[in-house]
């Protein structure tokens, strides 16, 4: 297992390098000019020098190497310096945003908590709703509950978050006036009242994102439970005289969770993608919104870094899902 893990980790390095290259070359073709926002009164030769100051004069492979160096060497050094008060970085050049002229990772660190809070919470809520739905749907197959569960997950697959988000805003914020339509990220929780407000403003974005998760995970949970309920060991367990709850919740559930756990791990990157749209709907100033703003302003270092971080997340979650599968299911041996 360890052998396999190490092999996969080593293999993921060329994968990530290739992905970084693809993203970089795509951005390289960008016609957008970071000088586009500058006043027209600046003479052309000054603009040219400003471009060079941004590092745009070098050939692409030099800049790609520089970006890689900054991402994998300089930024971790700064991170360690910040955490332990050491001085590894020694004033080395960090990845700088074209728009704000501040280090990209500082901005990301500012935006990350909002996104993580909303996205993480919605994923937890979505999975927590999905598991019981899947279990009951499978145990009472073709019952009314099962039919309703199928329908709800179909809705979850079909209604895009930009519509469900807008719809709940119209219903709960505009018509009923119960919940705020804009997510206030400056809000701080200090007492019961502010906590209640935080809960109120989180309900809608969390539920909109959770609907997608619920739809997917409950389907897998149901299918996996159905696979296991028909197995011989279930009949044996019942024949031994075990109570129904022990049979279902111990024997069947444990075995059914194996594929579901990997699905849960694999779904994490896609929910970050979904957050791009949801943040736009609820005006959460998280990572997704940062990406959209950076795209519109041709802020290449910012777009490059955020997109690459998402790619790292995808590759890592694939890896974790495969390893978890091997750890949980002793029948699976990779070596």
């Amino acid at each position: 297992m360890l052998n396999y893990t190490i092999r996969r980790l080593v293999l993921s390095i060329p994968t990530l390098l290739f992905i970084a290259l693809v993203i970089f070359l795509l951005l390289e073709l960008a016609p957008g000019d970071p000088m586009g926002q500058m006043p027209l009164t600046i003479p052309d030769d000054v603009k040219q020098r400003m471009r060079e100051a941004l590092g745009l004069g070098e050939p692409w492979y030099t800049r790609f190497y520089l970006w890689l160096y900054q991402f994998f060497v300089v930024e971790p050094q700064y991170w360690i310096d910040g955490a332990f008060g050491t001085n590894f970085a020694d004033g080395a050049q960090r990845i700088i945003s074209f728009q704000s002229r501040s280090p990209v990772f500082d901005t990301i660190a500012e935006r990350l908590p909002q996104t993580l809070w909303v996205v993480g919470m919605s994923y937890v809520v979505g999975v927590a709703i999905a598991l019981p739905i899947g279990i009951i749907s499978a145990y009472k197959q073709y019952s009314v509950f099962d039919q309703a569960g199928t329908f709800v997950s179909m809705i979850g697959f079909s209604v895009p978050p930009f519509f469900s988000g807008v719809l709940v805003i119209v219903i709960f914020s505009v018509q009923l006036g119960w919940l705020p339509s804009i997510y206030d990220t400056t809000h701080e929780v200090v007492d019961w009242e502010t906590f209640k407000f935080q809960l109120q403003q989180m309900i809608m974005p969390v539920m909109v994102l959770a609907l997608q998760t619920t739809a997917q995970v409950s389907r897998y949970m149901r299918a996996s439970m159905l696979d296991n309920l028909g197995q011989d060991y279930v009949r044996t367990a019942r024949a031994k005289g075990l109570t129904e709850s022990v049979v279902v919740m111990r024997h069947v559930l444990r075995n059914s969770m194996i594929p579901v756990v990997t699905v849960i791990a694999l779904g994490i990157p896609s929910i970050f993608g979904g957050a791009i749209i949801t943040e736009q709907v609820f005006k959460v100033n998280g990572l997704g919104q940062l990406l959209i703003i950076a795209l519109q302003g041709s802020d290449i270092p910012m777009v490059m870094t955020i997109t690459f971080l998402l790619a790292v997340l995808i590759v890592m979650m694939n890896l974790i899902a495969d390893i978890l599968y091997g750890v949980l299911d002793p029948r699976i041996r990779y070596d």
Partner: protein
Amino acid sequence: MTDVSQQVQPPLDPVEPSALTEKPRNQWLDVWDQFRSHKGAMAGLIFLIFITVFCTLGPVVWDVDPGKLDIRNKDVRPIYTVLWDGDAKVSWARPMGTDHLGRDIMANIMQGGRISLAVGWTAMILAILIGTFVGVLAGYFKRLDWGLMRFTDLVLSLPILPLLLVMMLLFRDPLRAAFGPETGIFILIVTGIGITSWMQTARIVRGDVISLKEREFVLAARSIGTPPRRMITRHILPNVLSPIMVSATLGLATAIITESALSFLGLGFPSDFPTWGKILFDSVDRMVAFPERVLWPGLAISLTVLAVNYIGDGLRDALDPRIRGL
């Protein structure tokens, strides 16, 4: 082949000769019979046909230019608003109301639906073509398998939505200059969605081709000297049609959602060129006063995708010979 299982007659019963005289049934007739018994799938199919007819033939009946400005009749509410608000500004000439520039919303929904459906179908067909091509090549030719599948894995690891957004920004102006604003963006969106959503199809097709390759009928065909090209088109492709059709329905649903998402993020078609996602995006600013403008395009997207998903569900059951006929 799947035909064989249907032609096996039940044990002969001399009392009932009809079993003998019954003609062997066409495979697709069986599929259709099974599909018809799936209520959700039938409802989905009927709705998809309805919305397609509504969008394509609708403008013949409802002859209003979707782009025509009519400031005098701006902000007309839909006709049903009268039911609870007698003073609302409504007009039978504008059953779904007009927007803030007086453009007719029903005509816009029709026009937008044509674009959204066209984008969905074309992008889906493109993705299916690429996916089938890659899948068949990887499954049939062992030399290509490793390389093509590693490539598929790589593309699967790309963060699709951000890259699509980047592509929209990058190629918008060159393509617009080359093909005109509408065709250019159409080509861009269709290609963008097509080349980022073929991977699942490729994986499924590859798996099926690999297992088909070991079957006797392929061996028989090879033993009489069938060249690979004809082997693929005559023997392999007809047998992987079922999984391709199922993933085509999923592809259509995803393509419609992705196009609307791009339009919603303001990176799709230009603003005077409505699609369902674009109409939704433009109406969000005024949704407090005019919620119906958000509701109609959103419902159109959601119901169409729901219908397509149900069709896929029914198709999966109908094409599975183990379930069919039960």
